[in-house]
């Protein structure tokens, strides 16, 4: 018997489905990472829309959910990544490399 993805996740117990998934197409919002800050620090989108993070610093950064269940991966200077959020809620996040850098994604229905 083969397990589908959902069953696998349930079977693993602690592993939940990531609330943000890699996205293609035009993002609804853009967050610039500049001088070790997310700008704007708070963004609101509708469920199913995506956000693009662009790093303008020399230092590599990430946008990583507080529960470490979603992540842009490492963004070097001028790199960008888009993530789609399908479920309404608030998603606080930080930079995994510089944890004092904080931001918030709000997803409304």
């Amino acid at each position, binding site marked *: 018997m083969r397990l589908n993805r959902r069953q696998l996740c349930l079977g693993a117990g602690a592993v939940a489905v990531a609330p943000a998934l890699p996205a293609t197409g035009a993002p609804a919002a853009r967050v610039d990472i500049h001088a*070790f800050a997310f700008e704007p620090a708070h963004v609101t989108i509708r469920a199913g829309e995506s956000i693009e993070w662009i790093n303008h*610093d020399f230092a*590599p950064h990430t946008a990583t959910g507080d529960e470490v269940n979603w992540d842009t991966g490492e963004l070097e*200077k001028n790199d960008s990544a888009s993530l789609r959020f399908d479920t309404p809620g608030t998603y606080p996040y930080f930079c995994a*490399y510089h944890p004092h850098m904080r931001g918030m994604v709000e997803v409304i229905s």
Partner: protein
Amino acid sequence: MKTLFLSAAIATSLLAQTVQAGEKMNDLEIAHTAYTAGQLDIRYAHLALAVSENTEVRAFAETMLRDHAAVNTAAVNLITKLNVTPQDNDLSRALVQGAADKRAELMSLSGKAFDCVYAQNELGYHQVVNKTVEESFIPAVTVEPLKELLSEALVTFKVHEGHAEMMVKGLQCA
């Protein structure tokens, strides 16, 4: 405690020397020293990753590797673009010698003693380098792209200084 005073005294005298030297340096010497300072911090970080078992200290060292490598890559790209060769100088040599001495001290330590000396040194080192870059290098540099690079690098180094300060506090060394 005595060691702490001693290293503070060394840092202060190095700082005086550093700031003074910076005033007479040309663009190519400044580029050399800024690059050297980054490379030395990368070497400290490699040592910390080899020795320390403290999660905070290791995370800090990883960040130093990543950030200083990124800044120095940008520096190499700029130097290549401008087609110039950075010049070794007294300040670069003093930094290299100072770091060699500090590494020798660190290599004789382990556990919390290592973590404390590493953390304290990272704080002092970033303080000295930042003060020099801000008050001496940036005002002295004449090539605009180099001034921009140093200014942007300074943003990174100041974050490191703040991070080092928290690390020192967190370790409760005194």
